[in-house]
Protein backbone atom coordinates (compact mmCIF):
# COMPACT_ATOMS: atom_id res chain seq x y z
CA UNK A 1 0.00 0.00 0.00
CA UNK A 2 2.82 2.43 0.99
CA UNK A 3 4.65 1.59 -2.23
CA UNK A 4 1.58 2.48 -4.29
CA UNK A 5 1.13 5.82 -2.49
CA UNK A 6 4.73 6.76 -3.26
CA UNK A 7 4.24 6.26 -7.01
CA UNK A 8 4.36 9.53 -8.92
CA UNK A 9 1.03 9.02 -10.67
CA UNK A 10 -0.69 8.56 -7.30
CA UNK A 11 1.06 11.62 -5.83
CA UNK A 12 -0.06 13.75 -8.79
CA UNK A 13 -3.56 12.28 -8.57
CA UNK A 14 -3.84 13.07 -4.84
CA UNK A 15 -2.58 16.59 -5.45
CA UNK A 16 -5.28 17.31 -8.02
CA UNK A 17 -7.99 15.64 -5.92
CA UNK A 18 -7.15 17.93 -2.97
CA UNK A 19 -7.04 20.93 -5.35
CA UNK A 20 -10.51 19.93 -6.56
CA UNK A 21 -11.75 19.66 -2.96
CA UNK A 22 -10.50 23.20 -2.26
CA UNK A 23 -12.23 24.60 -5.37
CA UNK A 24 -15.49 22.65 -4.97
CA UNK A 25 -15.57 23.04 -1.19
CA UNK A 26 -14.88 26.76 -1.55
CA UNK A 27 -17.69 27.04 -4.09
CA UNK A 28 -20.14 25.44 -1.67
CA UNK A 29 -18.97 27.19 1.49
CA UNK A 30 -18.09 30.76 0.57
CA UNK A 31 -19.55 33.43 -1.70
CA UNK A 32 -16.06 34.62 -2.64
CA UNK A 33 -15.53 31.40 -4.61
CA UNK A 34 -19.02 31.10 -6.13
CA UNK A 35 -18.00 31.22 -9.76
CA UNK A 36 -18.93 28.71 -12.45
CA UNK A 37 -15.31 28.46 -13.61
CA UNK A 38 -14.29 27.22 -10.13
CA UNK A 39 -16.82 24.39 -10.19
CA UNK A 40 -16.06 23.37 -13.79
CA UNK A 41 -12.30 23.39 -13.14
CA UNK A 42 -12.79 21.59 -9.83
CA UNK A 43 -14.72 18.77 -11.50
CA UNK A 44 -12.10 18.50 -14.25
CA UNK A 45 -9.29 18.34 -11.66
CA UNK A 46 -11.21 15.70 -9.70
CA UNK A 47 -11.65 13.52 -12.78
CA UNK A 48 -7.97 13.90 -13.71
CA UNK A 49 -6.88 13.19 -10.12
CA UNK A 50 -8.95 9.99 -9.91
CA UNK A 51 -7.61 8.86 -13.30
CA UNK A 52 -4.01 9.40 -12.17
CA UNK A 53 -4.58 7.50 -8.92
CA UNK A 54 -6.02 4.52 -10.80
CA UNK A 55 -3.52 4.43 -13.66
CA UNK A 56 -0.45 2.15 -13.40
CA UNK A 57 2.74 4.19 -13.47
CA UNK A 58 5.25 1.43 -14.23
CA UNK A 59 7.60 2.49 -11.42
CA UNK A 60 9.75 -0.09 -9.67
CA UNK A 61 10.23 2.00 -6.53
Amino acid at each position, binding site marked *: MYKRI*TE*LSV*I*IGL*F*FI*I*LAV*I*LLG*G*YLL*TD*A*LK*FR*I*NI*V*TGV*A*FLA*FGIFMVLVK*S*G*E*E*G
Partner: protein
Amino acid sequence: MKLHVADYLVIILYFAFVVAVGFIIKKRIRSSNDFLNSSKNIPLWITSLAFISANLGAQEVLGMVASGAKYGIMTVHFYWVGAIFAMIFLGVFMMPFYYGSHARSVPEYLFLRFDEKTRGLNAITFAVMTVFSSGISLFALAKLLEVVLGWDFDVSIWIAAGIVLIYTFVGGLTSAVYNEVLQFFLIVLGLSPLVIVALQDAGGWEQVKANLDPKLTHAWQYMGSADSNPMGIHFMSLIFGLGFVMSFGYWCTDFLVVQRAMIAKNMNASQRTPILAAIPKMLMPLIVVLPGVIAIALSQPALAGKGYSIPTDAAGNMDYTMTLPSLLSHYYPSGLMGVGITALLASFMSGMAGNVTAFNSVFTYDIYQAYFVKKRSDRHYLRVGKMVTLFGILFSIGTAYIATSFNNINDFLQLVFSFVNGPLFATFLLGMFWKRTTADGAFWGLLLGTVAAAITHGCTVAEGKGGWIAELYTVSSGMGQAFIVAMVSWVVNFFTTILVSLVTKPKPDEELKGLVYSLTEKPKYTGEKWYQKVVPMAILLIILTILLNIIFF
Protein backbone atom coordinates in the same frame (compact mmCIF):
# COMPACT_ATOMS: atom_id res chain seq x y z
CA MET B 1 -4.03 41.68 -6.72
CA LYS B 2 -5.41 40.30 -3.41
CA LEU B 3 -5.49 36.62 -2.61
CA HIS B 4 -8.24 34.75 -0.72
CA VAL B 5 -7.60 32.11 1.97
CA ALA B 6 -8.40 29.43 -0.65
CA ASP B 7 -5.64 30.80 -2.90
CA TYR B 8 -3.12 30.58 -0.07
CA LEU B 9 -4.33 27.03 0.66
CA VAL B 10 -3.51 26.03 -2.93
CA ILE B 11 -0.03 27.55 -2.69
CA ILE B 12 0.64 25.83 0.66
CA LEU B 13 -0.65 22.53 -0.75
CA TYR B 14 1.80 22.80 -3.65
CA PHE B 15 4.75 23.59 -1.37
CA ALA B 16 3.81 20.65 0.89
CA PHE B 17 3.64 18.23 -2.02
CA VAL B 18 6.96 19.18 -3.63
CA VAL B 19 8.74 18.87 -0.28
CA ALA B 20 6.96 15.56 0.43
CA VAL B 21 8.14 14.21 -2.94
CA GLY B 22 11.72 14.99 -1.88
CA PHE B 23 11.36 13.01 1.35
CA ILE B 24 9.64 10.07 -0.40
CA ILE B 25 12.52 9.87 -2.89
CA LYS B 26 15.10 10.22 -0.08
CA LYS B 27 14.53 6.56 0.88
CA ARG B 28 15.75 5.50 -2.58
CA ILE B 29 19.05 7.45 -2.42
CA ARG B 30 21.90 5.10 -1.54
CA SER B 31 24.75 6.16 -3.85
CA SER B 32 26.06 9.14 -5.78
CA ASN B 33 24.60 7.53 -8.91
CA ASP B 34 21.12 7.52 -7.28
CA PHE B 35 21.51 11.16 -6.26
CA LEU B 36 23.09 12.62 -9.40
CA ASN B 37 21.88 10.21 -12.10
CA SER B 38 18.67 8.60 -10.79
CA SER B 39 20.31 5.17 -11.36
CA LYS B 40 18.66 5.01 -14.78
CA ASN B 41 15.40 3.46 -13.58
CA ILE B 42 12.86 6.17 -14.37
CA PRO B 43 9.83 5.14 -16.52
CA LEU B 44 9.50 6.57 -20.01
CA TRP B 45 6.42 8.71 -19.39
CA ILE B 46 8.21 10.43 -16.51
CA THR B 47 11.47 11.07 -18.41
CA SER B 48 9.48 12.42 -21.39
CA LEU B 49 7.41 14.86 -19.33
CA ALA B 50 10.49 15.88 -17.30
CA PHE B 51 12.36 16.46 -20.59
CA ILE B 52 9.82 19.05 -21.69
CA SER B 53 9.22 20.39 -18.19
CA ALA B 54 12.91 21.15 -17.60
CA ASN B 55 12.47 23.67 -20.41
CA LEU B 56 9.15 24.96 -19.06
CA GLY B 57 10.70 27.53 -16.75
CA ALA B 58 9.57 31.04 -16.03
CA GLN B 59 11.24 32.59 -19.06
CA GLU B 60 9.42 30.05 -21.22
CA VAL B 61 5.93 30.56 -19.76
CA LEU B 62 5.94 34.33 -19.15
CA GLY B 63 8.26 34.98 -22.11
CA MET B 64 6.28 33.05 -24.70
CA VAL B 65 2.97 34.65 -23.65
CA ALA B 66 4.75 38.02 -23.96
CA SER B 67 6.12 37.08 -27.39
CA GLY B 68 2.66 35.90 -28.46
CA ALA B 69 1.36 39.38 -27.65
CA LYS B 70 4.32 41.13 -29.29
CA TYR B 71 4.92 39.03 -32.40
CA GLY B 72 1.60 37.16 -32.74
CA ILE B 73 1.35 33.64 -34.09
CA MET B 74 4.94 33.80 -35.43
CA THR B 75 5.98 32.84 -31.90
CA VAL B 76 5.00 29.25 -32.76
CA HIS B 77 8.27 29.06 -34.72
CA PHE B 78 10.00 28.49 -31.38
CA TYR B 79 8.08 25.19 -31.24
CA TRP B 80 7.27 24.03 -34.77
CA VAL B 81 10.61 25.11 -36.24
CA GLY B 82 12.86 25.65 -33.24
CA ALA B 83 12.14 22.55 -31.14
CA ILE B 84 10.36 19.52 -32.66
CA PHE B 85 12.88 18.70 -35.41
CA ALA B 86 15.84 19.02 -33.04
CA MET B 87 14.13 16.85 -30.41
CA ILE B 88 13.48 14.17 -33.04
CA PHE B 89 17.10 14.39 -34.26
CA LEU B 90 18.30 13.96 -30.67
CA GLY B 91 16.13 10.88 -30.20
CA VAL B 92 16.90 9.17 -33.51
CA PHE B 93 20.57 10.01 -34.05
CA MET B 94 22.24 11.34 -30.91
CA MET B 95 20.84 9.41 -27.93
CA PRO B 96 22.53 6.17 -29.09
CA PHE B 97 25.88 7.91 -28.47
CA TYR B 98 24.98 9.68 -25.25
CA TYR B 99 23.33 6.57 -23.78
CA GLY B 100 25.48 3.92 -25.46
CA SER B 101 28.76 5.55 -24.38
CA HIS B 102 27.66 5.26 -20.70
CA ALA B 103 28.69 8.89 -20.20
CA ARG B 104 27.11 10.39 -17.10
CA SER B 105 26.91 13.87 -18.59
CA VAL B 106 27.28 15.73 -21.88
CA PRO B 107 30.76 17.07 -20.92
CA GLU B 108 31.77 13.49 -20.07
CA TYR B 109 30.77 12.42 -23.59
CA LEU B 110 33.10 15.15 -24.91
CA PHE B 111 35.87 13.69 -22.72
CA LEU B 112 35.31 10.17 -24.10
CA ARG B 113 35.06 11.39 -27.72
CA PHE B 114 37.79 14.04 -27.57
CA ASP B 115 39.86 14.87 -24.50
CA GLU B 116 40.00 16.50 -21.09
CA LYS B 117 40.39 20.11 -22.25
CA THR B 118 37.23 20.01 -24.42
CA ARG B 119 35.28 18.52 -21.51
CA GLY B 120 36.70 21.14 -19.14
CA LEU B 121 35.76 24.05 -21.42
CA ASN B 122 32.19 22.78 -21.82
CA ALA B 123 31.79 21.84 -18.13
CA ILE B 124 32.94 25.22 -16.80
CA THR B 125 30.84 27.33 -19.20
CA PHE B 126 27.81 25.09 -18.57
CA ALA B 127 28.20 25.24 -14.77
CA VAL B 128 28.44 29.05 -14.80
CA MET B 129 25.45 29.34 -17.16
CA THR B 130 23.22 27.08 -15.07
CA VAL B 131 23.93 28.94 -11.83
CA PHE B 132 23.21 32.28 -13.50
CA SER B 133 20.11 30.91 -15.18
CA SER B 134 18.83 29.52 -11.88
CA GLY B 135 19.48 32.87 -10.17
CA ILE B 136 17.66 34.79 -12.91
CA SER B 137 14.66 32.46 -12.46
CA LEU B 138 14.71 33.19 -8.74
CA PHE B 139 15.02 36.94 -9.32
CA ALA B 140 12.14 36.94 -11.82
CA LEU B 141 9.95 34.93 -9.42
CA ALA B 142 10.56 37.31 -6.50
CA LYS B 143 10.09 40.38 -8.72
CA LEU B 144 6.79 39.04 -10.05
CA LEU B 145 5.49 38.24 -6.56
CA GLU B 146 6.54 41.70 -5.40
CA VAL B 147 4.85 43.52 -8.30
CA VAL B 148 1.70 41.38 -8.61
CA LEU B 149 1.00 40.32 -5.02
CA GLY B 150 2.98 42.89 -3.06
CA TRP B 151 5.03 40.17 -1.34
CA ASP B 152 8.42 41.06 0.12
CA PHE B 153 11.23 40.50 -2.42
CA ASP B 154 13.73 39.04 0.07
CA VAL B 155 11.21 36.73 1.74
CA SER B 156 10.07 35.42 -1.68
CA ILE B 157 13.65 34.67 -2.74
CA TRP B 158 14.57 32.81 0.45
CA ILE B 159 11.31 30.82 0.68
CA ALA B 160 11.38 29.71 -2.98
CA ALA B 161 15.10 28.87 -2.83
CA GLY B 162 14.60 27.08 0.52
CA ILE B 163 11.86 24.84 -0.91
CA VAL B 164 13.88 23.97 -4.02
CA LEU B 165 16.88 23.28 -1.76
CA ILE B 166 14.89 20.90 0.46
CA TYR B 167 13.60 18.70 -2.34
CA THR B 168 16.78 18.69 -4.43
CA PHE B 169 19.05 18.20 -1.38
CA VAL B 170 17.16 15.23 0.05
CA GLY B 171 15.99 13.60 -3.19
CA GLY B 172 18.55 14.66 -5.81
CA LEU B 173 17.81 14.37 -9.50
CA THR B 174 14.91 11.92 -9.10
CA SER B 175 13.13 14.33 -6.78
CA ALA B 176 13.66 17.22 -9.23
CA VAL B 177 12.41 15.06 -12.12
CA TYR B 178 9.31 13.87 -10.22
CA ASN B 179 8.48 17.43 -9.23
CA GLU B 180 8.99 18.59 -12.82
CA VAL B 181 6.23 16.18 -13.89
CA LEU B 182 3.89 17.45 -11.14
CA GLN B 183 4.78 21.00 -12.19
CA PHE B 184 4.10 20.16 -15.85
CA PHE B 185 0.53 19.04 -15.08
CA LEU B 186 -0.01 22.02 -12.80
CA ILE B 187 1.17 24.49 -15.45
CA VAL B 188 -0.86 22.89 -18.27
CA LEU B 189 -4.05 22.25 -16.28
CA GLY B 190 -3.74 25.46 -14.29
CA LEU B 191 -3.47 27.67 -17.37
CA SER B 192 -5.89 25.78 -19.67
CA PRO B 193 -9.06 27.35 -18.19
CA LEU B 194 -7.53 30.78 -18.84
CA VAL B 195 -7.12 30.03 -22.54
CA ILE B 196 -10.70 28.75 -22.79
CA VAL B 197 -12.38 31.69 -21.00
CA ALA B 198 -10.23 34.35 -22.65
CA LEU B 199 -10.83 32.88 -26.12
CA GLN B 200 -14.54 32.64 -25.42
CA ASP B 201 -14.60 36.25 -24.19
CA ALA B 202 -12.81 37.43 -27.34
CA GLY B 203 -15.50 35.75 -29.46
CA GLY B 204 -13.54 32.72 -30.60
CA TRP B 205 -10.53 32.31 -32.89
CA GLU B 206 -12.27 33.78 -35.94
CA GLN B 207 -13.03 36.99 -34.00
CA VAL B 208 -9.44 37.16 -32.74
CA LYS B 209 -8.18 36.91 -36.32
CA ALA B 210 -10.72 39.48 -37.55
CA ASN B 211 -9.52 42.02 -34.96
CA LEU B 212 -5.79 41.65 -35.59
CA ASP B 213 -3.39 42.73 -38.30
CA PRO B 214 -2.94 39.63 -40.54
CA LYS B 215 0.80 39.85 -39.86
CA LEU B 216 0.03 38.72 -36.30
CA THR B 217 -2.06 35.71 -37.32
CA HIS B 218 0.14 34.07 -39.98
CA ALA B 219 3.29 32.12 -39.17
CA TRP B 220 5.02 32.24 -42.58
CA GLN B 221 3.08 34.42 -45.03
CA TYR B 222 4.93 37.66 -44.24
CA MET B 223 8.42 36.22 -43.86
CA GLY B 224 9.55 36.83 -47.46
CA SER B 225 11.07 40.11 -46.31
CA ALA B 226 12.48 41.03 -42.90
CA ASP B 227 10.67 44.38 -43.05
CA SER B 228 7.19 42.95 -43.51
CA ASN B 229 6.79 40.91 -40.29
CA PRO B 230 6.77 41.90 -36.61
CA MET B 231 9.90 39.87 -35.76
CA GLY B 232 11.93 41.59 -38.48
CA ILE B 233 13.37 38.29 -39.67
CA HIS B 234 13.70 36.78 -43.15
CA PHE B 235 12.55 33.16 -43.41
CA MET B 236 16.06 31.95 -44.32
CA SER B 237 17.48 33.50 -41.14
CA LEU B 238 14.72 31.84 -39.18
CA ILE B 239 15.29 28.40 -40.68
CA PHE B 240 19.09 28.44 -40.34
CA GLY B 241 19.43 30.64 -37.24
CA LEU B 242 16.58 29.33 -35.11
CA GLY B 243 15.57 26.09 -36.84
CA PHE B 244 19.10 24.74 -37.16
CA VAL B 245 21.83 26.43 -35.11
CA MET B 246 20.01 27.63 -31.98
CA SER B 247 17.45 24.85 -31.84
CA PHE B 248 19.83 21.94 -32.37
CA GLY B 249 22.44 23.69 -30.20
CA TYR B 250 20.01 23.78 -27.28
CA TRP B 251 17.92 20.60 -27.59
CA CYS B 252 20.74 18.28 -28.68
CA THR B 253 23.64 19.47 -26.49
CA ASP B 254 22.33 21.26 -23.41
CA PHE B 255 22.80 18.85 -20.50
CA LEU B 256 19.84 20.35 -18.66
CA VAL B 257 17.41 18.68 -21.08
CA VAL B 258 19.58 15.82 -22.40
CA GLN B 259 20.07 14.61 -18.80
CA ARG B 260 16.35 13.71 -18.65
CA ALA B 261 16.78 11.31 -21.58
CA MET B 262 20.07 9.93 -20.23
CA ILE B 263 18.35 8.64 -17.06
CA ALA B 264 15.86 6.46 -18.97
CA LYS B 265 15.72 2.71 -18.25
CA ASN B 266 17.23 1.51 -21.53
CA MET B 267 18.40 2.63 -24.97
CA ASN B 268 14.93 2.42 -26.53
CA ALA B 269 13.40 4.51 -23.73
CA SER B 270 16.22 7.06 -23.94
CA GLN B 271 15.64 7.47 -27.69
CA ARG B 272 11.87 7.73 -27.26
CA THR B 273 12.12 10.27 -24.40
CA PRO B 274 12.64 13.38 -26.60
CA ILE B 275 10.36 11.94 -29.31
CA LEU B 276 7.42 11.44 -26.94
CA ALA B 277 8.19 14.82 -25.36
CA ALA B 278 7.74 16.36 -28.81
CA ILE B 279 4.00 15.57 -28.66
CA PRO B 280 3.16 17.93 -25.73
CA LYS B 281 5.79 20.35 -27.02
CA MET B 282 3.91 20.55 -30.33
CA LEU B 283 0.71 21.46 -28.46
CA MET B 284 2.33 23.84 -25.97
CA PRO B 285 1.61 26.98 -28.09
CA LEU B 286 -2.06 26.48 -27.12
CA ILE B 287 -1.09 27.20 -23.49
CA VAL B 288 1.72 29.74 -23.84
CA VAL B 289 1.36 31.49 -27.23
CA LEU B 290 -2.40 31.64 -27.76
CA PRO B 291 -3.06 33.65 -24.53
CA GLY B 292 -0.66 36.35 -25.78
CA VAL B 293 -2.39 36.51 -29.17
CA ILE B 294 -5.80 36.69 -27.48
CA ALA B 295 -4.50 39.42 -25.14
CA ILE B 296 -3.39 41.64 -28.03
CA ALA B 297 -6.77 41.08 -29.74
CA LEU B 298 -8.62 42.04 -26.54
CA SER B 299 -6.52 45.22 -26.37
CA GLN B 300 -7.82 46.38 -29.79
CA PRO B 301 -10.42 49.19 -29.83
CA ALA B 302 -13.13 46.87 -31.27
CA LEU B 303 -12.96 44.68 -28.14
CA ALA B 304 -12.44 47.52 -25.63
CA GLY B 305 -15.84 46.68 -24.11
CA LYS B 306 -14.36 43.49 -22.66
CA GLY B 307 -12.43 45.64 -20.18
CA TYR B 308 -9.04 44.03 -20.70
CA SER B 309 -5.86 45.62 -22.00
CA ILE B 310 -2.20 44.71 -21.79
CA PRO B 311 -0.58 46.77 -18.98
CA THR B 312 1.71 49.65 -19.90
CA ASP B 313 4.99 50.72 -18.34
CA ALA B 314 5.93 54.16 -16.99
CA ALA B 315 6.71 55.39 -20.51
CA GLY B 316 3.28 54.31 -21.77
CA ASN B 317 4.60 51.37 -23.82
CA MET B 318 2.96 47.95 -23.60
CA ASP B 319 4.60 45.87 -20.88
CA TYR B 320 4.35 42.51 -22.62
CA THR B 321 6.01 40.63 -19.75
CA MET B 322 2.97 41.36 -17.60
CA THR B 323 0.52 39.93 -20.15
CA LEU B 324 0.06 36.57 -18.37
CA PRO B 325 -0.28 37.97 -14.81
CA SER B 326 -2.76 40.58 -16.09
CA LEU B 327 -4.84 37.90 -17.86
CA LEU B 328 -4.89 35.81 -14.66
CA SER B 329 -5.95 38.84 -12.67
CA HIS B 330 -8.71 39.68 -15.17
CA TYR B 331 -10.23 36.23 -15.68
CA TYR B 332 -9.47 34.11 -12.60
CA PRO B 333 -11.66 34.47 -9.49
CA SER B 334 -10.50 33.53 -5.99
CA GLY B 335 -9.73 29.82 -5.83
CA LEU B 336 -8.66 29.45 -9.42
CA MET B 337 -6.41 32.47 -8.94
CA GLY B 338 -4.44 30.40 -6.40
CA VAL B 339 -4.08 27.67 -9.05
CA GLY B 340 -2.87 30.20 -11.64
CA ILE B 341 -0.33 31.80 -9.28
CA THR B 342 0.85 28.34 -8.20
CA ALA B 343 1.29 27.36 -11.86
CA LEU B 344 3.58 30.38 -12.27
CA LEU B 345 5.46 29.45 -9.08
CA ALA B 346 5.81 25.91 -10.42
CA SER B 347 7.34 27.14 -13.67
CA PHE B 348 9.91 29.25 -11.79
CA MET B 349 10.80 26.46 -9.38
CA SER B 350 10.92 23.83 -12.13
CA GLY B 351 13.40 25.97 -14.08
CA MET B 352 15.51 26.56 -11.00
CA ALA B 353 15.59 22.93 -9.82
CA GLY B 354 16.43 21.71 -13.35
CA ASN B 355 19.42 24.03 -13.48
CA VAL B 356 20.59 23.12 -9.98
CA THR B 357 20.46 19.35 -10.59
CA ALA B 358 22.27 19.67 -13.93
CA PHE B 359 24.84 21.91 -12.22
CA ASN B 360 25.56 19.46 -9.40
CA SER B 361 26.03 16.51 -11.81
CA VAL B 362 28.43 18.47 -14.04
CA PHE B 363 30.31 20.04 -11.14
CA THR B 364 30.70 16.77 -9.22
CA TYR B 365 31.60 14.51 -12.16
CA ASP B 366 33.24 16.83 -14.68
CA ILE B 367 35.01 19.37 -12.50
CA TYR B 368 35.49 18.02 -8.96
CA GLN B 369 36.10 14.34 -9.81
CA ALA B 370 37.93 15.09 -13.07
CA TYR B 371 40.30 17.78 -11.81
CA PHE B 372 40.45 17.81 -8.01
CA VAL B 373 39.73 14.54 -6.19
CA LYS B 374 39.83 11.54 -8.52
CA LYS B 375 39.63 8.25 -6.65
CA ARG B 376 37.53 8.45 -3.54
CA SER B 377 34.65 6.33 -2.29
CA ASP B 378 31.16 6.63 -3.72
CA ARG B 379 30.02 7.91 -0.33
CA HIS B 380 32.46 10.80 -0.71
CA TYR B 381 31.00 11.83 -4.09
CA LEU B 382 27.45 11.52 -2.71
CA ARG B 383 28.41 13.95 0.08
CA VAL B 384 30.06 16.28 -2.43
CA GLY B 385 26.98 16.12 -4.69
CA LYS B 386 24.79 17.19 -1.77
CA MET B 387 27.15 20.01 -0.79
CA VAL B 388 27.27 21.20 -4.40
CA THR B 389 23.45 21.30 -4.38
CA LEU B 390 23.57 23.53 -1.31
CA PHE B 391 26.22 25.81 -2.81
CA GLY B 392 24.42 25.84 -6.17
CA ILE B 393 21.31 27.21 -4.44
CA LEU B 394 23.37 29.76 -2.48
CA PHE B 395 25.13 30.89 -5.68
CA SER B 396 21.69 31.19 -7.33
CA ILE B 397 20.51 33.42 -4.48
CA GLY B 398 23.67 35.51 -4.92
CA THR B 399 23.02 35.76 -8.66
CA ALA B 400 19.42 36.78 -8.00
CA TYR B 401 20.67 39.68 -5.89
CA ILE B 402 23.27 40.61 -8.51
CA ALA B 403 20.40 40.73 -11.01
CA THR B 404 18.69 43.42 -8.93
CA SER B 405 21.61 45.75 -9.68
CA PHE B 406 21.57 45.24 -13.45
CA ASN B 407 18.43 45.94 -15.41
CA ASN B 408 19.72 44.02 -18.44
CA ILE B 409 21.32 40.97 -16.83
CA ASN B 410 18.72 38.66 -18.38
CA ASP B 411 19.55 39.98 -21.86
CA PHE B 412 23.21 39.44 -21.03
CA LEU B 413 22.54 35.87 -19.94
CA GLN B 414 20.57 35.07 -23.10
CA LEU B 415 23.48 36.45 -25.07
CA VAL B 416 25.96 34.24 -23.22
CA PHE B 417 23.67 31.29 -23.98
CA SER B 418 23.79 32.07 -27.69
CA PHE B 419 27.60 32.43 -27.48
CA VAL B 420 27.97 29.00 -25.84
CA ASN B 421 25.12 26.91 -27.26
CA GLY B 422 25.33 28.36 -30.79
CA PRO B 423 28.72 26.92 -31.71
CA LEU B 424 28.42 23.77 -29.55
CA PHE B 425 26.22 21.85 -31.96
CA ALA B 426 28.92 22.03 -34.67
CA THR B 427 31.30 20.24 -32.27
CA PHE B 428 28.79 17.45 -31.65
CA LEU B 429 27.71 17.15 -35.27
CA LEU B 430 31.28 16.70 -36.46
CA GLY B 431 32.30 14.65 -33.42
CA MET B 432 29.47 12.15 -33.81
CA PHE B 433 29.30 11.88 -37.59
CA TRP B 434 32.88 12.46 -38.83
CA LYS B 435 35.37 10.13 -37.19
CA ARG B 436 38.30 12.21 -38.50
CA THR B 437 37.39 15.03 -36.07
CA THR B 438 40.23 15.43 -33.58
CA ALA B 439 40.38 16.64 -29.99
CA ASP B 440 42.38 19.73 -30.97
CA GLY B 441 39.91 20.48 -33.78
CA ALA B 442 36.97 20.28 -31.36
CA PHE B 443 38.64 22.45 -28.73
CA TRP B 444 39.81 25.22 -31.04
CA GLY B 445 36.57 25.15 -33.01
CA LEU B 446 34.57 25.58 -29.81
CA LEU B 447 36.81 28.34 -28.50
CA LEU B 448 36.99 30.32 -31.77
CA GLY B 449 33.26 29.82 -32.39
CA THR B 450 32.54 31.40 -29.00
CA VAL B 451 34.97 34.27 -29.70
CA ALA B 452 33.35 34.78 -33.14
CA ALA B 453 29.96 35.04 -31.43
CA ALA B 454 31.27 37.77 -29.11
CA ILE B 455 32.87 39.69 -32.01
CA THR B 456 29.66 39.47 -34.09
CA HIS B 457 27.65 40.85 -31.20
CA GLY B 458 30.22 43.60 -30.74
CA CYS B 459 29.91 44.64 -34.39
CA THR B 460 26.09 44.55 -34.74
CA VAL B 461 23.41 46.69 -33.11
CA ALA B 462 19.77 45.83 -32.45
CA GLU B 463 17.32 47.79 -30.29
CA GLY B 464 20.27 49.71 -28.81
CA LYS B 465 22.15 46.56 -27.79
CA GLY B 466 25.51 45.30 -29.07
CA GLY B 467 27.97 47.34 -31.13
CA TRP B 468 30.49 47.53 -28.29
CA ILE B 469 33.39 47.06 -30.74
CA ALA B 470 32.09 49.03 -33.74
CA GLU B 471 28.56 49.65 -35.03
CA LEU B 472 29.05 48.03 -38.43
CA TYR B 473 25.57 46.57 -39.03
CA THR B 474 22.11 47.33 -37.70
CA VAL B 475 19.55 44.56 -37.17
CA SER B 476 15.86 45.44 -36.74
CA SER B 477 15.22 43.17 -33.71
CA GLY B 478 17.21 41.69 -30.86
CA MET B 479 15.94 38.27 -31.88
CA GLY B 480 17.32 38.73 -35.41
CA GLN B 481 20.67 39.73 -33.90
CA ALA B 482 20.71 36.58 -31.72
CA PHE B 483 20.12 34.45 -34.84
CA ILE B 484 23.01 36.15 -36.69
CA VAL B 485 25.34 35.72 -33.70
CA ALA B 486 24.43 32.02 -33.47
CA MET B 487 24.87 31.44 -37.23
CA VAL B 488 28.30 33.11 -37.39
CA SER B 489 29.56 31.24 -34.32
CA TRP B 490 28.32 27.93 -35.73
CA VAL B 491 29.98 28.48 -39.13
CA VAL B 492 33.29 29.55 -37.53
CA ASN B 493 33.27 26.54 -35.20
CA PHE B 494 32.34 24.15 -38.03
CA PHE B 495 35.13 25.21 -40.40
CA THR B 496 37.76 25.72 -37.68
CA THR B 497 37.10 22.20 -36.37
CA ILE B 498 37.45 20.74 -39.87
CA LEU B 499 40.64 22.67 -40.70
CA VAL B 500 42.38 21.90 -37.39
CA SER B 501 41.25 18.25 -37.55
CA LEU B 502 42.79 17.85 -41.00
CA VAL B 503 46.22 18.85 -39.70
CA THR B 504 46.13 16.99 -36.37
CA LYS B 505 46.10 13.31 -35.49
CA PRO B 506 42.72 11.60 -34.93
CA LYS B 507 42.06 8.91 -32.31
CA PRO B 508 42.37 5.31 -33.53
CA ASP B 509 39.10 3.60 -34.59
CA GLU B 510 39.16 1.21 -31.61
CA GLU B 511 38.86 4.14 -29.21
CA LEU B 512 35.89 5.60 -31.08
CA LYS B 513 33.57 2.58 -31.03
CA GLY B 514 30.21 3.57 -29.57
CA LEU B 515 31.10 7.25 -29.89
CA VAL B 516 30.83 7.97 -33.64
CA TYR B 517 28.15 7.00 -36.13
CA SER B 518 30.24 4.97 -38.60
CA LEU B 519 31.82 2.82 -35.87
CA THR B 520 28.72 2.14 -33.80
CA GLU B 521 26.25 -0.70 -34.19
CA LYS B 522 22.80 0.82 -34.74
CA PRO B 523 20.18 -0.15 -32.18
CA LYS B 524 17.62 -2.58 -33.64
CA TYR B 525 14.19 -3.05 -32.13
CA THR B 526 12.09 -6.01 -33.10
CA GLY B 527 8.71 -7.20 -31.96
CA GLU B 528 7.48 -3.83 -30.74
CA LYS B 529 4.35 -2.11 -31.95
CA TRP B 530 4.86 0.75 -34.45
CA TYR B 531 4.25 3.43 -31.81
CA GLN B 532 6.96 1.90 -29.63
CA LYS B 533 9.51 2.19 -32.43
CA VAL B 534 11.70 5.26 -32.77
CA VAL B 535 11.69 5.91 -36.50
CA PRO B 536 7.95 5.48 -37.31
CA MET B 537 7.02 7.80 -34.43
CA ALA B 538 9.64 10.33 -35.58
CA ILE B 539 8.26 10.32 -39.14
CA LEU B 540 4.69 10.73 -37.90
CA LEU B 541 5.67 13.71 -35.73
CA ILE B 542 7.58 15.36 -38.58
CA ILE B 543 4.48 15.05 -40.80
CA LEU B 544 2.24 16.50 -38.07
CA THR B 545 4.64 19.41 -37.49
CA ILE B 546 4.74 20.22 -41.22
CA LEU B 547 0.93 20.09 -41.30
CA LEU B 548 0.68 22.55 -38.39
CA ASN B 549 3.02 24.93 -40.21
CA ILE B 550 0.84 24.69 -43.32
CA ILE B 551 -2.42 25.23 -41.39
CA PHE B 552 -1.08 28.42 -39.76
CA PHE B 553 0.96 29.48 -42.84
